[in-house]
């Protein structure tokens, strides 16, 4: 049902702030999203701003959670817990055609 035809493996970064319930929820949601659109064919980095503040600085992150779609470009930031209604927007940023549209 999913058509993944880009040559690069998509790269996503999820920034969270500490081991809060909001962070946990965000991580779970993003994993589910990835598995749904690109099962087994993606790279996801989960970055805790507490642990790696310099990464947050490089990526200009101040709000958490933020999901950064790094590849394929252009980079797009999704700020917030990702409601399921927002999933197609993430898919679009990943150049993934979905039947949700």
């Amino acid at each position, binding site marked *: 049902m999913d058509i993944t035809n880009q040559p690069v493996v998509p790269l996503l970064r999820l920034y969270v702030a*500490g081991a809060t319930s909001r962070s946990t929820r965000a991580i779970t949601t993003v994993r589910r999203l990835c598995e749904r659109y690109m099962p087994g064919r993606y790279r996801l980095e989960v970055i805790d701003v507490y642990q790696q*503040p310099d990464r947050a600085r490089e990526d*200009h992150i101040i709000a958490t*959670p933020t999901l950064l779609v790094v590849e394929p470009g252009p*980079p797009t*930031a999704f*700020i*917030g*817990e*990702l409601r399921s209604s927002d999933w197609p927007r993430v898919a679009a940023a990943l150049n993934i055609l979905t039947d949700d549209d």
Partner: protein
Amino acid sequence: MEFPAAITNLPKAPTGIRGLDDITGGGLPRGRTTLICGGAGCGKTLLAFETLVRGAALYGEPGLFVSFEESPADLRMNVANLAIDVANLEQRGLLLLEQISLEQGEIAEVGEYDLEGLFIRLGLLIDRIGAQRIVLDTIETLFSAFGNQSILRGELQRLFRWLRQRGLTAIITAERSGQGLSRFGIEEFVADCVILLDYRITEHVLTRYARIVKYRGSSHGVNEYPFTIGPHGITMLPITSFTLRYPVSAERISSGFPDLDHLLDGGGYYRGSTILVSGPTGSGKTSLGASFVAAACARGEPAIFFAFEESADQIVRNLRSIGIDLQQWRDRGLLQIISSRPSLAGLETHLITLLEAVEQSGARAVVIDPITGFHTISRPVDITTMLFRLFDGLKSLGVTTLATSLTNAGADPAQSEVNISSLVDTWIVLRNHETNGERNRSLLVLKSRGMRHSNQVRELVMDAHGLRLVEIYAAGETVLIGAARIAEQERLRHEQELHEREAIQRQRRYALQQRLLALQIEALQAELAALDDEMNAAADLSEARARAQIQSRLATSRYRDSTQEGSDGR
């Protein structure tokens, strides 16, 4: 007074900015958040930056500057022309400049979030230098980066609480909006201290203003305080000092003009007083000012002559012609002649430049020639305020100030400067008199507080020997001055001579008469003597005659007796 202790002991963090600490009663609230609002180009960033830098340099309080807009390199460039060694402070770990950039290309908001990432990053930066002061410049950038206003408001509120918990003296800058103070109503929750910056342009000259809108738990100045951005950063001057307590001196100093000293109760001006010399063009104002500074320099006191109409060299040359050598004092470093155009800067800048120059040089005597030059750049009411502050500032420094004021030809100098007359201690009015095809000058001490001064109008004479005051001749309603005075003097001298000559003649006539009379008396006396002689001679003659008659009578009777005895016989 619910919390009197809190009110009096509210800890403050001095900004180190001249004037701002005066009007805030010691600085910004320590450990609290201050909001600085203003439109673009009002000096918000600079005010915040300077507070941070001075806090680090003067009070050893490490400061963190977080910009949401400018890079540290840009910030360093912006303050490069201020006399502040930013690099040195950064090296010593007293200052940290950080840009928190929000450019992220495409951004979408997808559900709930918070700004914990910002908190974490700020926390790390604060810990890195042990910051005690922090600036967030400007908060609007955050608002514009995020769409969910309610989340943002909540998070900002949390941020300010967090800053307070960490005991940071924080400054948040915000763009001013048309209606409220800041576009997003931040002042509602950052409420400890709110400073509003503004600028206005009048007559093509820009003046900046600061006003403390709110200062919780502290008294503060409530006016709009003009400020300038100069080579030493921001300078704010209180409109007036809070009290009228000046060091009052009874010492008298010479006006440099002995005849004028004589009119001023014999002693000259009071030290630390303000003297106004008003008069039309060419009435001798500058000369009076120059002789005043020359006298100060001759006493070994530094002096400054602020010239708003002529160049320094022009002044030196012109005064040489009346025997005042200013160059010698310039050469010895006692006299500065600072020449500038009134239109070169705003009133506020002039005011601050003047006071700074006086303070730096330690000048004891100052001339401002003329104060009326400012009329071209500002409204009279602003000038009056500025002069009030200027005289006030100079007085508090114990400086004796002579200001000249140009009055329009025809206008009565005693009327035209009414608005500042209350500011001056001694007011000298110069006038031009045009009669008989020539122009002459007169001088009157209109007022001089605290001394018995002459109320006489004198003629002011200027020549190669300097200044002189000459008594004026009044002929009925008009005073005689210049050639008319000289003619009158001549006439009087002639009259006097005539009188003297007449007196001598009278004297001579009298002497002659006297001699004549004496001669007459002599003649009469001789006549009298002759008469006397005559009289005596006549008397002798008649006596002799009488005696002779008696003798003859006796002889006759003796004869008769002898003849009668012989014939009768009875």
